[in-house]
């Protein structure tokens, strides 16, 4: 089987969903409403192409003036004025189209592609060309001719279209790929998404993927659960236990949690989830670097909390522990996932505390994919040999009921520790119980738990106390 020659898009994440980039000499339609990001995407591809030694012919019809375009692009990092007129030529063929028709434009494009030795042709204004065409047949002929002559010289073509080219459109049938950009409002948030709607000869990752536009240009975040990594299936299971940092908790679960496992620490606010996480991270070392990936407390507040409780964390600046705080702003779910994976990879993290999964949940525009997202993320993290504690907030302040999402998610987790607050003699008592522990025997007793000097202390079994605890706890 012959390997298909590809041209990198130069856009982070886009090559992944295109199964390796654009096919060299193939033609693609980049479509989307005005403001969706087509111009930025095509210019970014153009400049990255030129930066890697390619040459670009960027052809416009009735669009904004080239100077206006340059002014807009000037704010983006990839734009380089030195390349204009050298590696990248912007030309307008409007007058040729108006005066002499599509056939003349095809001839002009052939000459210009050859003159500039272009290996990438961007044609902005496919719908204007369609307007000038007499029939669907003319449109198909135009695309076939432009594509055919470009392919002949190994030049890849991107046609930009400002509205949706449907599957029935003549253009759609003629090109090798269709990429759609959209910008929709979800609640008060603007949501940019990209979809490969057609991909001839490549197994693109279908469905919607988020992207963002920053001063660096476009970055695409392929859906994490769509990246099937065969290494996950073949990854060896880690042996041994990892201490939680609380000696008598370790004793309840067989000397710590299983290495490489994921433990959910569920409980209402104030029940001690973050404190348990700080205990876990206090055991971070040069051999087992730790990461706090949190959404609620800043590094300063976390350190203050640890100091107040007498939990000794590695000092600030010590590479054994990284405290990473992401505010609950307009986060993109997959972007958070990639940021976490990058931190874990680059710092060779072995102890990870995610505080909490709710930060990811809030970033999810499509909640129905959360379980698959977490499953994909945890698979990638397991592959990196990291042992994970993740907190999950239960809404009910007092009692034992675990909210439904945790039940769904618990199926993909190895272990679950439930922290509760129960009312006893008109005062709140904290308790801890192990709900699930992978491949291990564990103490199923619920214990009283409290904050003391040195952090969390596990006390006597609840059933040894005067008032019995609420007996009902969910199973994972």
């Amino acid at each position: 089987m012959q390997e298909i020659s590809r041209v990198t898009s130069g856009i982070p994440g886009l090559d992944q969903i295109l199964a390796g980039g654009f096919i060299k000499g193939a033609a693609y339609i980049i479509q989307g409403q005005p403001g969706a990001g087509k111009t930025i995407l095509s210019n970014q591809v153009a400049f990255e192409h030129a930066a890697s030694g390619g040459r670009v012919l960027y052809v416009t019809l009735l669009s904004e003036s080239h100077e206006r375009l340059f002014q807009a692009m000037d704010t983006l990092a990839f734009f380089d004025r030195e390349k204009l007129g050298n590696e990248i030529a912007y030309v307008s063929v409007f007058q040729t189209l108006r005066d002499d028709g599509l056939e003349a434009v095809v001839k002009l494009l052939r000459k210009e592609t050859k003159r500039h030795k272009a290996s990438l042709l961007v044609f902005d204004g496919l719908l204007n060309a369609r307007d000038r065409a007499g029939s669907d047949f003319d449109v198909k002929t135009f695309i076939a001719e432009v594509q055919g002559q470009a392919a002949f010289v190994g030049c890849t073509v991107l046609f930009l279209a400002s509205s949706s080219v449907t599957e029935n459109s003549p253009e759609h049938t003629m090109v090798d790929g269709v990429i759609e950009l959209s910008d929709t409002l979800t609640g008060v948030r603007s949501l940019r998404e990209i979809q490969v709607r057609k991909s001839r000869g490549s197994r693109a990752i279908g469905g919607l993927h988020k992207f963002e536009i920053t001063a660096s240009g476009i970055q695409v975040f392929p859906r994490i659960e769509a990246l099937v990594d065969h290494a996950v299936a073949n990854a060896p299971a880690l042996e041994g236990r990892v201490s939680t940092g609380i000696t008598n908790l370790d004793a309840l679960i067989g000397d710590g949690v299983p290495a490489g496992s994921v433990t959910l620490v569920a409980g209402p606010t104030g029940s001690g989830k973050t404190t348990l996480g700080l205990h876990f991270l206090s055991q971070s070392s040069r051999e087992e670097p730790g990461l706090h990936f949190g959404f609620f407390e800043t590094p300063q507040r976390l350190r203050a909390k640890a100091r107040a409780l007498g939990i000794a964390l590695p000092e600030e600046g010590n590479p054994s522990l990284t405290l990473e705080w992401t505010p609950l702003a307009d986060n993109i779910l997959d972007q958070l996932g990639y940021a976490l994976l990058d931190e874990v990879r680059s710092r060779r993290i072995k102890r990870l505390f995610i505080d909490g999964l709710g930060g990811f949940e809030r970033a999810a525009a499509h909640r129905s994919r959360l379980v698959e997202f977490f499953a994909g993320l945890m698979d990638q993290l397991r592959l990196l040999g990291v042992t994970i504690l993740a907190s999950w907030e239960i809404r009910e302040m007092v009692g034992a009921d675990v909210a439904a999402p945790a039940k769904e998610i618990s199926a993909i987790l190895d272990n679950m520790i439930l922290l509760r607050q129960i009312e006893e003699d008109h005062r709140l008592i904290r308790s801890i119980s192990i709900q699930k522990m992978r491949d291990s025997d564990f103490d199923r007793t619920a214990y009283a738990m409290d904050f003391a000097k040195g952090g969390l202390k596990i006390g006597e079994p609840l059933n040894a106390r005067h008032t019995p605890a609420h007996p009902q706890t969910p199973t994972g």
Partner: protein
Amino acid sequence: MAFILVVDDEFLLAMMLADILEDEGYKVETAPNGQVALDRIKEEQPTLIITDFMMPIMTGLELAEAVRSDESISDMPIILVSGARGGIARERPEYFQAVFDKPYKNEALLAAVERLVSPTRPS
């Protein structure tokens, strides 16, 4: 009446500049690229050429090279208006009598036009 040839592939920009120059009383024609301009120059010599840089078929720089290398028209004044390549043009003063970066001020361009089409008039 001075005859000015405006050469720009961006149709709207060429038309707007032509309108401004016509308002000043010049005779103006437009051409969408250097080759069309060169063909027209051979039919009727303009007093002045105002050209863009990046264009299909023949760029503004190539047009200037062609004009300067043809003895019959080699002293024809040329103004370059460019979005991006003003720097290159300024390195070739023998090609261009004036270089303007887009966006430019119309008054400044008109002043240069007036100076170049009426060389005997003190500026």
